[in-house]
């Protein structure tokens, strides 16, 4: 049995809006699970149900085997970090961190010791007597994290904790969150709409859309083998192009009239239209950032646009029939990117052509083997 278990969770708000349906998840002790999805997909509602702020319409929530579905939030022993920090403005940093411990009626010495430990953990030693308004956003969120950890909760819940911070602090703080989580080995559920955060932090990701779980898997699986068109389009940059089946059994297709091959299991009659996904970084610009490889798909194209994104240069190639494909190549000072209008060839291995749609992906073991082959 998993440490945190959500079974058949459903949440319907008054008025009939179904926020979450058929949500089943088991998180092991010490696991870092992220709920990833766009606004309104039900990720925060699910988190709030774990915290006890929302009551599920159906289903059960268990922590360490105990059913806590109907338990009030203050008796769940679950720590929560909010997007808006929610630090108590009338209390100092030490007062905030020690608040939960005072409620647990711990001796003053023990509280002081624990507060000092946590201040050290979040690198805010000597700032215990400051008030929240005297701290920066990143420092406030670290205090909020320490406050949640102070009571040694069974599960730590983080509701988009980095959304209000600027980009640099966000990156630094997410490293800190991951380090602290690993060092304490605390089971953590993290809500975010930022795929980069989810991919970097999580042991497993739950991708959600319109109240449903689209896919559960490791960041590697989610990125490389999206199970649904939604996951494919939401996680990472993706070229979704229309293709036509030539020979399903042999994995032969055409894109804009150009023949290609895929290793994905195909179904459908010849001539049937399907959607194929190509990650920009899986496509090579022949003669620019690599050479044509035997057995790889080769598609002639014309450069439509070139965008410099810092470490990456994104080339948009027109392959005909109005279909455009983004190709990412690492930037280097000697990179000779052809100007717009230049003819070029795109090359990508058959494994890179993901066929979107139910049942279109290979079995789990085949997918992992294919992924390893790609690396």
């Amino acid at each position, binding site marked *: 049995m998993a440490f945190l278990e959500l079974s058949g969770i459903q949440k319907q708000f008054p008025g009939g809006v179904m926020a979450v349906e058929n949500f089943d998840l088991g998180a092991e002790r010490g696991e870092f699970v992220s709920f990833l999805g766009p606004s309104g997909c039900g990720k925060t509602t699910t988190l709030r149900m774990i*915290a*006890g*702020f929302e009551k599920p319409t159906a289903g059960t929530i268990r922590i360490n085997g105990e059913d806590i579905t109907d338990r*009030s*939030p*203050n*008796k*769940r*022993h*679950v*720590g*929560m970090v*909010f*997007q*808006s*920090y*929610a*630090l*108590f*403005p*009338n209390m100092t940093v030490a007062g905030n961190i020690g*608040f*939960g411990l005072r*409620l*647990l009626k711990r001796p003053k010495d023990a509280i002081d010791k624990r507060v000092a430990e946590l201040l050290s953990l979040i690198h805010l030693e000597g700032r215990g007597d400051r*008030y*929240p*308004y005297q*701290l920066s*956003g990143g420092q*406030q969120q670290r205090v*909020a994290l320490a*406050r*949640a950890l102070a*009571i040694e909760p069974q599960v730590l*819940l983080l509701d988009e904790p980095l*959304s*209000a911070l600027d980009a640099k602090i966000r990156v630094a703080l997410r490293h800190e969150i991951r380090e602290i989580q690993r060092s304490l080995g605390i089971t953590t559920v993290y809500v975010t709409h930022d795929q980069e955060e989810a991919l970097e932090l999580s042991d497993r990701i739950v991708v959600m859309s319109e109240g449903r779980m689209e896919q559960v898997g490791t960041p590697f699986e989610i990125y490389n083998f999206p199970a649904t068109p939604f996951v494919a389009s939401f996680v990472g940059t993706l070229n979704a192009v229309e293709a036509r089946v030539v020979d399903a059994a042999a994995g032969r297709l055409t894109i804009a009239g150009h023949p290609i091959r895929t290793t994905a299991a195909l179904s459908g009659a010849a001539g049937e239209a399907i959607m194929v996904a190509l990650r920009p970084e899986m496509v090579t610009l022949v003669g620019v950032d690599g050479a044509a490889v035997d057995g790889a798909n080769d598609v002639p194209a014309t450069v439509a646009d070139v965008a410099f994104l810092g470490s990456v240069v994104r080339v948009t190639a027109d392959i005909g029939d109005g279909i455009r494909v983004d190709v990412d190549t690492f930037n280097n000072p000697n990179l000779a990117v052809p100007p717009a209008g230049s003819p070029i060839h795109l090359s990508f291995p058959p494994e890179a052509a993901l066929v979107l749609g139910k049942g279109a992906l290979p079995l789990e073991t085949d997918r992992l083997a294919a992924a390893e082959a790609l690396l």
Partner: protein
Amino acid sequence: MSSRNPAIAATITAERLTEGEAPAPPPSRRRWRFSGLIWWVVFVLGVTYFLTPLWSTLLFSLQAQPFLAAYTNTLNDPQFFKTLTYSFVVGIITTIVSIGLMVPTAFWVRLRVPRLRRLVEFVTLLPFVIPPVILVFGLIRSYGSGILPLTNTDLGSSALLVAAYTVLSFPYMYRAVDTGLRSIDVQSLTEASQSLGAGWPRILWQVILPNLRVALLAGAFLTLAIVVGEFTIATFLARPAFGPYLALIGGNKAYEPAAVSLISFVLTWIAMAVIAYIGRGTRVTVAGAR
């Protein structure tokens, strides 16, 4: 042609100044000066309008002979302090009762039933619509006899007075508390407290109330100001309050009412200074993303 080089531009400006060519202030600065002038005119008019009656009252009160007689007579009158003390005590009790009713109500409405906010606002505004004389007659008829004859004793009448004043304080106290709650993220603070193990009484007492300190002081001050000067309800309940005392000396003496008015005014400013002192350096907004 203007120079893009700041050094050259500065030199040109300096040369023009030495040649006696005064640079015309830019239009935005002229507008600012004009609006600043208007602001001062409005300010002086407002201060004059506000201070003239006070000044006139002061001059009138000083006409009593011997000099300052109106003030010494007032301060030597035992009824002055007796009624003032009674009204202050009733005011403080009213404030406590009002806070005890309004804080949990406004908190719950904001947190759990925000759709009832307009209804609660309307209910709290009723004292503006229902005259005090109606309220006090209702209280006397309800509690003058029957199973709870409160008007038969001094303590009972004082309790009725507090109840009536609590109703009168609703519009002020509810708005003050609601404004205070609006300045903090009530939901997040409540949920953060809950996740740390706090129950409702502790959330209200340790998290919400301390962050409403300034708002509560404002509400308390308004309540106190109303109670201290209230006449109708205190008179009909035959209470020895400051309002009826003011009316009494107003009808019997010439200069003393002016002195009492000014003393009340000074007390009001002292109360405001106390609020400003207690609320100094307080930040009621939730620091962070907002």
